[in-house]
C-alpha cells in the first residue's frame, strides 16, 4: 500500500537558519501517528512545511500529488486540516461562525448544517456557547473549537500541533479520547505533534522521534514507548 503522505528529504529554513535537515517519513491512510521531540527539535516546523508556511525543499506528496508548489490555502483545499499551535481561533467571531469558516471551501452547503450538529455532538460544550464570541471560551474549549473547525473541512488528514499545550491534564485526556474516536469513526488520518509523549504514545499506532531537525527513531508506538532511550529522554522514567 502506498502511504497517504510521503515526505522525503525535507529541509526547512527560517531566513538563513536551517530548521529541518533532511527529514523523511510517511503516514498510512487511517493511521494515528505522533511526532515526538524536545523543544526546538523541528516538530512544528515539519507541520508548517507540509502546509507551505515556511520555506522548504525536498518532496512532500499527498495521495500522490506533490504539495511543493501549492499555497497554504490550496494545500488545505486538498483535505489537509491543520490545527496550529495557539489554536488560531477567530476570537472576535462567534463559535458558530468559526465552525462555518472551517467549511468555507466546501461546495456541499446542505451538509454543512448537519456537520455543525455533529460537531456539537462531539463537543457538547460548544453547543451551549454557539452564539458566544469565540474569544470568551476557555483554553480547553478553544482547543475543542479549533479541532471542530478543522473537522468541518471533512479532512482526509488532520495535523495537530501540540493540542495539549496549556491545558489541564483532565481536559487533555478528554481531547485525546476524541482524537482517537475521530480517527476510528470518521476515518481521518491524524498526525499529532506532542510534548506529552506518554499520552501520545498510548493512543497512537505509530511514532516518530525527531531531534534537531532529523528523524532519529521510528516504529510502532508500543515499541517506541518501550525503548530505553525514549523512556529516559521523553517519558522521564
Amino acid at each position, binding site marked *: 500500500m502506498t502511504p497517504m503522505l510521503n515526505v522525503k528529504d525535507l529541509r526547512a529554513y527560517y531566513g538563513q537558519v536551517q530548521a529541518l535537515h533532511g527529514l523523511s517519513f510517511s503516514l498510512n491512510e487511517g493511521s494515528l501517528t505522533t511526532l515526538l521531540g524536545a523543544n526546538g527539535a523541528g516538530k512544528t516546523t515539519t507541520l508548517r512545511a507540509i502546509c507551505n508556511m515556511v520555506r522548504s525543499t525536498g518532496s512532500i506528496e499527498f495521495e500522490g500529488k506533490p504539495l511543493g508548489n501549492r*499555497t497554504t490555502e490550496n494545500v*488545505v483545499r486538498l483535505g489537509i486540516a*491543520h490545527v496550529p499551535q495557539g489554536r*488560531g*481561533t477567530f476570537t*472576535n467571531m462567534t463559535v458558530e461562525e468559526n465552525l*462555518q469558516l472551517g467549511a*468555507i471551501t466546501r461546495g456541499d452547503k446542505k451538509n454543512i448544517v448537519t456537520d455543525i450538529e455533529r460537531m456539537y455532538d462531539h463537543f457538547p460544550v460548544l453547543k451551549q456557547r454557539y452564539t458566544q464570541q469565540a474569544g470568551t471560551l476557555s483554553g480547553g474549549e478553544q482547543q475543542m473549537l479549533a479541532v471542530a473547525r478543522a473537522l468541518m473541512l471533512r479532512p482526509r488528514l488532520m495535523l495537530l500541533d501540540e493540542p495539549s499545550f496549556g491545558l489541564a491534564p483532565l481536559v487533555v485526556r478528554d481531547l485525546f479520547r476524541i482524537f482517537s474516536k475521530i480517527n476510528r469513526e470518521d476515518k481521518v488520518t491524524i498526525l499529532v505533534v506532542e510534548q506529552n509523549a506518554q499520552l501520545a504514545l498510548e493512543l497512537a499506532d505509530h511514532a516518530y522521534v525527531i531531534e534537531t531537525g532529523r528523524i532519529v527513531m521510528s516504529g510502532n508506538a508500543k515499541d517506541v514507548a518501550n525503548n530505553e532511550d525514549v523512556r529516559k529522554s521523553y517519558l522521564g522514567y
Partner: protein
Amino acid sequence: MELFANQVLAGIATGAIYACMALAVVMIYQAIDHLNFAQGEMAMFSTFISWQLMQWGVPYWGSFVLTVGFSFVAGIAIERLLFKPLAKAPILTNVAGFIALYAIINSVAGLIWDFTIKQYPTPFGSSPFLGSQLISTHQAGMIGVTILLLILLFIFFRFTRMGLAMRAAASLPESARLVGINTSWMIALGWGMAAAIGSIAGMLIAPVVFLEPNMMLGVLIYGFAAAVLGGLTSPLGAVVGGFLVGVFENLVGTYIPGVGNELKLPIALALIVTVLVVKPAGLFGRPIVKRV
C-alpha cells in the same frame, strides 16, 4: 431651540457626505490595515468617468452602474499591480505608495478634464425635502443611499460566506489560509469594494461640492475624521461617525463666532487628534492590542 434643531438637521445632511466616504475608508482599512490616502482621488476619478459617460449621452443610472463596476475592477487592478508586491513592506513604503497613487490620479484627472469646476447632476432633484428649507431632496436621497449601502454591507458581511471569509482574512490571515481562504484575493476584493463605495460617494457628493480634481481633499479628511470617530473597524461606526461629524461641524459653525467656512479643515483636524488621543478605538471600534 428651533435653530438648534434646524442646524442638527442640516448637519445630518452634510454628514451623509462624510458617512459615505468614511464607509469606503473603513472598507479598505478592514482589508489591509492601512488608510488609503488616495481614496478620495480614486472616488474623484470615478466621478469624472461617470460625468464623461453622461457627456457621451449615457443616462444617469446607466453611467452610475457602469462607473461602480469600473471602479470595482479598477480597485482590484490597482491592488494586484501596485500594492500586492508591497504587502510585506514596512508601513512607510505603503504610505509612500498611497501618496504616489494620490499624485498620479490627481494629476491625470487634471490633464484629461482640466481644473475648471463642472456641474454634476443629481437624480433626486434639488427641491426642498418635505417642505424643509434646510434639507434638499438630493441630501435626503444621499442619506437614503448611505443607509441602504450600510444595510447591504451588513448583510454581506454577516450572512454571506464571502463576507465571512473576508472578515476572517482581515482579522487573522494565517488562520484564514489554514481554512482554505485565499487571503490575497480577499484583500483585492476589499480594494474593489472600497473603490466601488468610494465611487458612489463621489457621485453623490459631486452635485454638492461640484466636480473638479481637488473636490475630494476636504471630504476625505472629513471622511477620515468620521471613520476615526466611529472606529476604523466598524462600518456602522463610520456612518454614525459621518453624521456626528456633520452635525458637530454645523453646530460649531453656528454657535462659536468667527468659525465659519474658513475653519472647516482645522475643525476636522482637531476632531481627529482629539478622538485618537482620547478614545483611539472610536465609538464602535475594537481596541487593538500590540503584542511585544
